[in-house]
């Protein structure tokens, strides 16, 4: 089990000093996934006032760090290709914290790049994996169907109508945030509750507007020591708490379809940071689907099991509401190239540094970023603080 006292000693021992996206998000057929990695890396390093030649640790998922480092022309002294779905990049933040504190490296670069929309170089599936035997032959393939089965079980346990209303609330509130973010895919397109309920079925009980976008995009994060963070060009963000883990791969092996692993990683990250839920000014929660947000709010401990629908009622998570959630517009309305987790950290860092433009929160001193990977399989949570 994690040793929370040792983890508390690690709290604050590394800072995020740079974040960035690739130059263009959305439909970008003219760029490869590695091009997205490299653009985002350069942008994040520029944000930090650093160069590729300063980087001595590389973290990525979906690709091997061998390929990404070679493409960037760097020779890292610490390497981590932990790849457990979209949560990976949040987990990389925790790994970078530990590696920097231990002395393995000083400037850690986390990169992401995917052409989910244009389907360039998709990640291959393993034919020997159990899913290839037990789920794929039945057409249980990909996230929408798997998450839809989890959502249907939640409806059975906690009420179909109130679950449906909660999913609609999340779809509508997230779009309102996207309407404030010029980088968002749906920056110019508003959505209403009627639009939500009228949208076509993808995998019942999911409407189209329950589902994230499929885009081409990349992002990167630069992390360094507290000492070097003092020279950061645009300020820094302290990494205060972290947790990671997973409890299944296939959806049919999930121990409880209404309780993902955030039940462990959320409380751990918050305790390590030495804060409480009510101290947090912003929650960036991976929204592959509206249901993912609903169940994750409960798992992280913001409310109890089955209380999520009441927690998100009446557009409480929208701009102006008292629980700011997914202020970049999320995977639902900003961007989602396949493994979105890194973007939760990018937005949290921008809000904490006061660089979020029209969507900047009045007060943002503490933020939680949470990634979910696979089929509700893995989670990574970090708590970040303003300097």
């Amino acid at each position, binding site marked *: 089990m994690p040793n929370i006292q040792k983890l508390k000693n690690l709290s604050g021992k590394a800072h995020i000093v740079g974040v960035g996206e690739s130059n263009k998000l959305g439909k970008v057929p003219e760029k490869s996934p590695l091009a997205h990695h490299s653009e985002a890396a350069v942008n994040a390093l520029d944000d930090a006032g650093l160069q590729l030649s300063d980087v001595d640790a590389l973290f990525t998922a979906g690709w091997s760090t061998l390929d990404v480092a070679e493409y960037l022309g760097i020779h890292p002294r610490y390497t981590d290709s932990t790849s457990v779905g979209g949560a990976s990049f949040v987990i990389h933040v925790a790994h970078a914290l530990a590696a920097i504190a231990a002395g393995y490296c000083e400037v850690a670069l986390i990169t992401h790049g995917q052409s989910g929309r244009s389907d360039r170089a998709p990640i291959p599936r393993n*034919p*020997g994996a*159990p899913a*290839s*035997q*037990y*789920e*794929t*032959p*039945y*057409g*249980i*393939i*990909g996230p*929408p*169907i798997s998450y*839809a*089965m*989890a959502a*249907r*079980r939640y409806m*059975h346990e906690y009420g179909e109508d109130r679950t449906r209303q909660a999913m609609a609330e999340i779809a509508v509130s997230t779009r309102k945030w996207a309407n404030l973010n010029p980088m968002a895919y749906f920056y110019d397109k508003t959505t209403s509750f009627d639009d939500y309920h009228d949208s*076509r*079925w*993808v*995998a*019942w*009980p*999911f409407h189209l507007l329950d589902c994230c976008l499929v885009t081409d995009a990349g992002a990167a994060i630069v992390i360094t020591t507290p000492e070097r963070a003092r020279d950061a060009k645009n300020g820094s963000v302290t990494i205060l708490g972290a947790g990671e883990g997973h409890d299944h791969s*296939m*959806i*049919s*092996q999930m121990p409880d*379809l209404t309780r993902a692993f955030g039940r462990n990683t959320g409380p751990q990250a918050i305790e390590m940071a030495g804060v409480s839920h009510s101290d947090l000014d912003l929650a960036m929660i991976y929204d592959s689907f509206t249901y993912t947000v609903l169940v994750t709010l409960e798992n992280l401990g913001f409310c109890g099991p089955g209380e999520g629908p009441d927690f998100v009622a009446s557009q409480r998570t929208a701009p102006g509401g008292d629980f700011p959630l997914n202020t970049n517009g999320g995977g639902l309305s900003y961007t989602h190239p396949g493994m979105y987790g890194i973007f939760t950290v990018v937005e949290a860092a921008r809000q904490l540094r006061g660089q979020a433009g029209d969507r900047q929160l009045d007060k943002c001193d503490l933020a939680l970023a949470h990634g979910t990977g696979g089929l509700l399989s893995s989670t990574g949570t970090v708590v970040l603080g303003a300097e």
Partner: protein
Amino acid sequence: MTGNTPKPQPVPQPESDRYWEGLKNEEIWLQRSVATGKFQFYPRALAIEDADGNREIEWVQATGNAELFTFAIAHIAPHPGFAGDVPYITALVKLEEDVIVPTNIVGIDPEPENLQIGMQLKPVFKHHERGHTLLMFTPA
């Protein structure tokens, strides 16, 4: 999409040959822990529940009695092999032996009102021309 692309077929591994061979004979064979009596799905080389470190497994034929645990209705084919099947019902069913099995519900129209969680199900063995048999379910 014409539906002419073949569906992906299962790729059995040595520890699951007995499961797939059983389905061909319209029998459901499951593993259980010798030490605890707890069943497990899918077949593995060891029991995932142990008692005093005993991870021995044995094979037992299941009754086929099942209930619906949850479901979804796929309206967009996630693979070209399923293009001719949408909408179709994907489900997780709980066997009498207390294991969850991923499957399809067949023999009813794919409408939410036709499916109640907890409804009793019985097995349907779908023999495929390429030699394997899939385990599906229909209302009992």
